[in-house]
């Protein structure tokens, strides 16, 4: 991708919709299913993925000419793991509740297909600016998809969206009617079904012939 202005905007927008990692490239399923029981958790996961994505894309695109073939994968995993550890430490220090709730899924960002995919497909071939645009685009695309999924699941499971900053803040609260108290939505069953239907919806909207 040439390094001019239009390609920057195009890479950024591609990440948001045409090549949205979750909805179109179907990558990064593990965190998407695991963490979307609550909107706050989804947003925290999205934020940490953006941070790691930007960090690793920049470092990878900085060293893209020095990479040797046999150490390629090792270098990517090392950089990504380092950034994920920083993110994990930060969360443990400043957001202990969230870090406990997300548990093992923060370190699992290392093997999240999106980050290694962007590092390999985009960052190791383009300059800093394009990689940055791509990282932010992909990150926001990922967070957006996660937030929507979490919204649906949390509303259906508990009937309310709760944010915890010290004290509980209930944004939305729906009547205590069975439709909004489906415990299944918080369990793995709900995760798979909701994501499956959501991907189906996206495919219908884009009318993609596969």
């Amino acid at each position, binding site marked *: 991708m040439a390094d001019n202005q239009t390609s920057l905007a195009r890479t950024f927008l591609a990440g948001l919709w045409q090549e949205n990692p979750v909805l179109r490239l179907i990558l990064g399923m593990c965190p998407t299913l695991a963490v979307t029981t609550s909107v706050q958790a989804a947003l925290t996961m999205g934020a940490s993925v953006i941070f790691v994505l930007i960090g690793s894309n920049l470092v990878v695109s900085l060293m893209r000419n020095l990479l040797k073939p046999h150490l390629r994968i*090792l270098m990517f*995993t090392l950089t990504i793991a380092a950034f994920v550890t920083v993110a994990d430490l930060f969360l443990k220090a400043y957001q202990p509740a969230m870090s406990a709730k997300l548990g*093992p899924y923060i370190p699992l960002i290392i*093997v999240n297909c999106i980050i290694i995919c962007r590092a390999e497909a985009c960052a190791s071939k383009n300059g800093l600016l394009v990689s940055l645009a791509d990282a932010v685009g992909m990150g926001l695309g990922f967070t957006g998809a996660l937030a929507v999924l979490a919204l649906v699941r949390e509303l259906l499971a508990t009937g309310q969206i709760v944010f915890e900053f010290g004290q509980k803040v209930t944004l939305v609260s729906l009547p205590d009617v069975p439709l909004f108290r489906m415990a299944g939505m918080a369990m*793995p*069953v709900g995760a*798979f079904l909701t994501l*499956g239907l959501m*991907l189906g919806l996206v*495919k219908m909207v884009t009318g993609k012939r596969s």
Partner: protein
Amino acid sequence: MDTFETLLLGFLGIVIVNNLVFTKFLGTCPYLGVSGRIDMAFGMGCAVTFVLALAGTLTWLIDYFVLIPYGLNVLRYVCFILVIAGAVQLVEMYVRKFFPVLYDSFGIFLPLITTNCAILGMCLFINLWGIDNLPETVVLSVGAGLGFTLAICIMAGIRENLELADVPAALRGAPITLITAGLLTLAFMGFAGMIR
């Protein structure tokens, strides 16, 4: 003696009760991608089991003998992923060179495993559950691999029949696989809480 009993219960527990794919969402990326045909799925399962056993033991050794005594917990993730990536790449080269036949059957899945959440996930869970002896680590790792193979082979069988089914256009491919996986999770929830 009860250690054998714990090992057996632990093994059954990890294969059926808290199966990595259904209860912990680990390994869903290749689970959706490679479960098209049963032979591919089985090959993938064997490769994952082999690497999980190898990686689980290696990472536990490093964790137990180096990280915890010296208090270097911060390096846990970096060391784990370095070991896994290095081990997988080494094994792949070795199998490709000396066992070409074996390589064609399951070796080709090896590079796919470095970005597989199940491997790193399992290593982290071993650390999280505070397993403090080697036999239990090996048994749990192999069990997790077999659990993954079980899940992916069941899914491959279903998806092969799904090819003949009249799936609505929008749901073809990943969406229908996810919905099937959801129903499978429902089935596996029957085992929940059986072994703790």
